[in-house]
């Protein structure tokens, strides 16, 4: 089994290095997607399927597509020759960057210190794991990660959703450049017509699965966003008016979280607590709202839609 880990680690470093050294930013973003998928496999090897789900959907899928969109925008103008910045190669610069040795040495020193530090740390074998396992029956949520996210450390998640909302407000404040409409592709349209509903179903399934095993609002929201983006790339008329990315939908998750946190918390005697017996429906309600808001947020972060 260690051979698998070793090969995965080598492949991961290889992909990270080549993504950073790639000649064009487009190539770099393509390799970054592969890096994210490989990292998801590494999470699986480390026993963290929840993280693997989030990484595959958000880290590889949405982040990669985001970088790819910007890269194609930047490089298309360059190839189109509309820039007056003097003669240039089709790609930014042969190597992308030139080494400056002082900085390289500084970074090497930082990494060396980091490695020495983490090697010196005695791994905390299961202290938190035991604490979670001990309190799990009391939380009435079967899956430990979901219990941590929505019960034990619910304030963390609440603030995280608030950060997402702030980010999307900031992104929408900077207007996106207009996007060109995509031509119709019959093969893609047919495949997407089957895949998109399936992806929506998978999102619901992950949401439901989160209460008993890996899954939950974040992963489900990311798959939802992936489905909407896929529909957009295939010029399918899913959400043609961009209703999904309007403010009420974006704020729904945070609003319901706060509301339930206060009302149910008052009944339970602690803010963000849940009265016993009501935990499962309340958590599921919060997660459903979070899924919709997170999906909408990721789509909104991606930028304005333009239908053909």
């Amino acid at each position, binding site marked *: *089994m260690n051979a698998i*880990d*070793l090969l995965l*680690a080598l492949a*991961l*470093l290889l992909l*990270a290095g080549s*993504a*950073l050294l790639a000649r064009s*930013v487009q190539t*770099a*973003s393509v390799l970054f997607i592969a890096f994210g998928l490989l*990292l998801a496999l*590494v999470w699986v090897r*480390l*026993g*963290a399927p*929840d*993280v693997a789900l*989030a990484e595959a959907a958000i*880290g590889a899928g949405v*982040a990669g597509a*985001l*970088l790819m*969109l910007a890269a194609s925008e*930047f490089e298309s*103008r360059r190839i189109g020759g509309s820039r007056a910045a003097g003669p240039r190669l089709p790609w*930014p610069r042969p190597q*992308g*960057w*030139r080494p*400056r040795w002082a*900085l*390289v040495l500084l970074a090497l020193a*930082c*990494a060396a210190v*980091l*490695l020495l530090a*983490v*090697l010196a740390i005695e*791994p*905390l*074998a299961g202290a*938190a*794991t035991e604490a979670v396992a001990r309190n799990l029956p009391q939380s009435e949520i079967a899956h*430990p*990660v979901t219990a*941590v*996210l929505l019960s034990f450390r619910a304030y963390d998640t609440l603030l*995280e959703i608030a*950060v*997402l909302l702030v980010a999307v407000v900031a*992104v929408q404040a*900077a207007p*996106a*450049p207009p996007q060109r409409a995509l031509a119709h592709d019959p093969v893609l349209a047919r495949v997407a017509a089957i895949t998109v509903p399936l992806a929506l179903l998978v999102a619901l399934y992950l949401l439901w699965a989160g209460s008993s095993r890996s899954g939950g609002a*974040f992963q489900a929201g990311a798959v939802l966003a992936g489905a909407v983006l896929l529909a957009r790339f295939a010029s399918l008329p899913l959400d043609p008016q961009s209703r999904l990315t309007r403010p009420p939908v974006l704020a729904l998750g945070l609003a319901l979280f706060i509301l339930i946190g206060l009302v149910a918390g008052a009944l339970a005697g602690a803010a963000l607590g849940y009265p016993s017996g009501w935990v499962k429906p309340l958590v599921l309600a919060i997660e459903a709202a979070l899924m919709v808001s*997170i999906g909408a947020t990721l789509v909104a*972060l991606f*930028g304005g839609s333009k239908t053909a």
Partner: protein
Amino acid sequence: MSGVSIWLPTGSALVLFGLLGMLLASSILRKLLAFNVMGSGIFLLLLALRPPGPDGVADPVAQALIITGIVIAIAATALGVRLARRYHQLSGQTELPEDRAATRDD
């Protein structure tokens, strides 16, 4: 134990790659990409320092922290990408002025 310790050097190396990328790359998008690679390295260290229990499942607190981290990273990346696109739209540049100056001096 030995299975986990492979990931400590791997995570540190990813942090190094990300750091180098953020310091040396001139294009904004490359810097964002490097930022994400560096973040992945940190997450890897976080989880590698909490070895999985007897059932093979990793520490749920560390998992929850990393999931939160991934979501925050995408929010920051998206904001950076949008600002870069806006900057490109207004100035036609894909690099910040100080990076352009630095690479021109070399």
